[in-house]
């Protein structure tokens, strides 16, 4: 009796999950592209930092450029301005990353809400039943959760990195590209790709119907 009852709700949940994974795929693509766009920007932060360092090392009155008034201050101003612009752009990218994170969180929340609503009719055995083409509901919820955690952590790390930058701390600015790269964990990326492979049959199966 109960298994017959739970079939419709499990189907509905599977539908939502399917949609979530489709979203995850697009999200992952957006995430990747945004990160790829960030790389030159971060590189230029490092560049500008090096230029600022060079400027602070040189003593302009001792060079042929001494004829130009206030050259050091002007150059410094220009470089800082450029740095500001780059950081502004990076912030925009950050907002994009945030939107990816949020949209994924919303998907997950929707799936969970649906599950909680129907939790009385969905018994645990139905939730943990796996078939050759489809993983169990529990597994899929878990993967979505892990992906959410990954996005949250990645976003937070990048955000704190950008927040910690100070215009007067040159060494920190110079090391920005390396630190940005080091935040990329291959295992986390792979996990999401793996997940998407694992659910590919399940996601595709719907399209066939």
């Amino acid at each position: 009796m109960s298994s017959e009852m739970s079939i419709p709700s499990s189907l509905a949940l599977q539908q939502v999950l399917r949609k979530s994974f489709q979203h995850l795929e697009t999200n992952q693509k957006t995430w990747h592209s945004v990160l790829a766009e960030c790389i030159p920007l971060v590189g230029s932060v490092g560049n500008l930092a090096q230029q600022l360092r060079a400027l602070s090392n040189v003593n302009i009155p001792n060079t042929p450029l001494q004829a130009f008034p206030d050259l050091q201050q002007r150059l410094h101003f220009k470089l800082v301005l450029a740095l500001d612009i780059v950081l502004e752009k990076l912030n925009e990218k950050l907002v994009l990353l945030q939107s990816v994170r949020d949209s994924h969180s919303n998907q997950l929340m929707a799936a969970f809400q649906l599950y909680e609503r129907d939790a009385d009719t969905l018994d645990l055995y139905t939730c943990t039943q796996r078939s050759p083409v489809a993983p169990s509901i529990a597994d899929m919820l878990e993967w979505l959760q892990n992906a959410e955690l990954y996005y949250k952590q990645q976003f937070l790390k990048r955000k704190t990195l950008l927040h910690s930058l100070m215009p007067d701390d040159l060494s920190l600015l110079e090391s920005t590209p390396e630190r940005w790269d080091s935040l990329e964990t291959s295992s986390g990326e792979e996990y999401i790709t793996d997940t998407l492979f694992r659910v590919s049959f399940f996601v595709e199966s719907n399209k066939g119907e």
Partner: protein
Amino acid sequence: MSLRVLTQDSADRGSQRCRVGLGLMSTHGLNLGSPVLVYIAGGTCLCTAWPRSDLTEGFMQIDLKCVTPNLIAQPSLKLSLGPSQLTPLTCSKLRHIKVTVVVQSVDFRKKTPLHIINELVKDMMKGVYVRKKHVVNVEDWDAEIKYVVVEEVSPDCDDAGLVTAKTSVNIVGTQTQRHFQRQLRDKPVDPLGGLDEVCASLREMLELPLFYPSTLSSLGVSCPRGVLLAGPPGVGKTQLVRRVVGEVGASLVVVRGPEVVGSRPGESEEALRAVFARARAEADEGPCVLFLDEVDSLCPRRMGSSAPENRVVAQLLTLMDGMDQSDRFLIVGATNRPDSLDPALRRPGRFDREVVMGAPTQQQREAILGVLCGKMPLAPSVDMADLAQRTVGYVGADLGALSREAAMCAIRHDAQRSGGQEIDMSHFQQALKTVLPSCLRSSLGRTDLAPVSWEQIGGLQDVKLKLIQSIEWPMKHPDAFMRLGLRRPRGVLLYGPPGCAKTTLVRAAAAASHCSFLSVSGADLYSPYVGDSERALAQLFQQARACTPCILFLDEIDTVIGSRSGGESPNSVQTRLLSVLLNELDGVGFKTLERRGTQRVLQAEGHEQSPADQQKLDYQEVCNKDVMIIAATNRPDSLDSALLRPGRLDQIIYVPPPDPEARLAILRVCTGSMPVDADVCLEELAAKTELYSGADLEKLCKEAALLTLQDEGMGACSIKHTNFLKSLDAMSPSLTAQQINTYQTPLS
């Protein structure tokens, strides 16, 4: 069925999942991701239930993301759990939480504005189930924020709450990780007994600038920053500091004197500066106490001009002066020889306050014993008040040793017979024999005396009564003394012909009252150096005062203390000793260092002293105040008259040679342990022994016994009357009528 706890998968780290089998989930009515509380190792962990990926039963993996603080300090998990240790919780969405944030470095705390920290915390906490007084571990985010301590949740409930995007996060404080972890580690502090007043005063100094900084600044006063604790060893100075620091949650930087002293010139000063820098850094993270233990070794009185210690002293002085208002740490020094400190250290601005912790009074001892024995299984026969009365002169450390020894006795006793492990009074009595008060340990008059009861002294009823009046009554009935406005006498002089039990009387008095008992003779005091004897006597009094109530016994006082009226030169050692004694007996007052017990009630505590308390304190004063002198002499005429006036040796008791009745009593006591024939007539002997002293009578009995052995061989089993008469014939009395006459003329 118990669950085996396995380490969690790396993919689960930070997910707050608790992996269990499906069967367990359904028996507990758990759904996927529903919050569950796990009781482990004295704490709880809030998780979300999740089935294991292989769906097997009997195993459990926990992610310790949200736990009670004690699990952070010791994350060792038991290897198995019972299913009853899981409790499903209902869950509500939270509107509001109050948190304390634990960050890694002071730098981050200083540089990062609060709204950014707030944003970060909000991001981290979103989707996490929390519970009041739990700590959320966010170390795996690799951010500067390490832990988030949930102080309050709203709506307030005991169940789990989910932090959502709509939950507002209020940060009530930030702490550094080091400070937080130390606080967790230092939590369990042993309570201290009998030091409440000192404790409160120290805590007040620590907390005032911390909690009411604006009040202090508006008053325009700077808070005291230095306290000197002075007191004899073992009263608990170091423990007190540790306890207060633990209570306030401050960090503690300890400097032990010898540790900072280096061999190369300048090394010690540098070490000292480093210590102050460390304290300053700690003070940035929270309240901090810099504790200079045994400060007398670090800062001795400066002498000469170029001693290397002088530089250390100077460095310490400048460092203490150089603390500015922003340095919010308190310096506490502890010493048992405050007089050997450099005087420059003891002025306001350096050590502002000096707290004297004397040897504990009777009430304090009772409190200390109460704390020490709090965890011991005591038999109902143990009377703490009685024990406190017997342990005169014991400091906290001695009492600790005493209770430990008593417990050991109980264990030894219990090993012989099986039964309930209880410590009763007999164990404490046994321990009292082995643990002696450390106050008197190095004192020169410390004597071990075999206890003598009043019954063992024949006759002398009047003298006994007078002694009991002046020694035992003030101890046992302080309320009666208070009521009638009486004071216990300062001193008692026993005089009388030799051999009439003066010394034995004192012994009995000491045994009957549980006082500490010091006995000095001329040999203890005299020394070839000028001034040494006087100092020894003064020191003796000082020690005696430290462990009052105390009886100081000066036997043969006429030889120790001279008289100014006699023909002796006015500057002899005896007359100088006399002046010391007069001063000590009736001096102007105590030295501040010898203060004991409770002196003042703190205003800040808002604690009114009830009249009953006050009365109790007064009683205590009666028996705690003074050292009692008992002097004995057989030449009262050679004593200085100043010594004999009321207020000094005010009870002058003549111990007469025994009259016939007394002689009979003495003979009874002496023959009590001897097998005497039925024909022995003690009354006849008593009548025949006119002018015999107690000592003579004892000798008479001994002689009779020896004569018996001589006559009848070693097998003799009873003493005949003839032997007594024989020995009486052989002896002559040691007293003469003329001698007795001189005693009976009243003392001028």
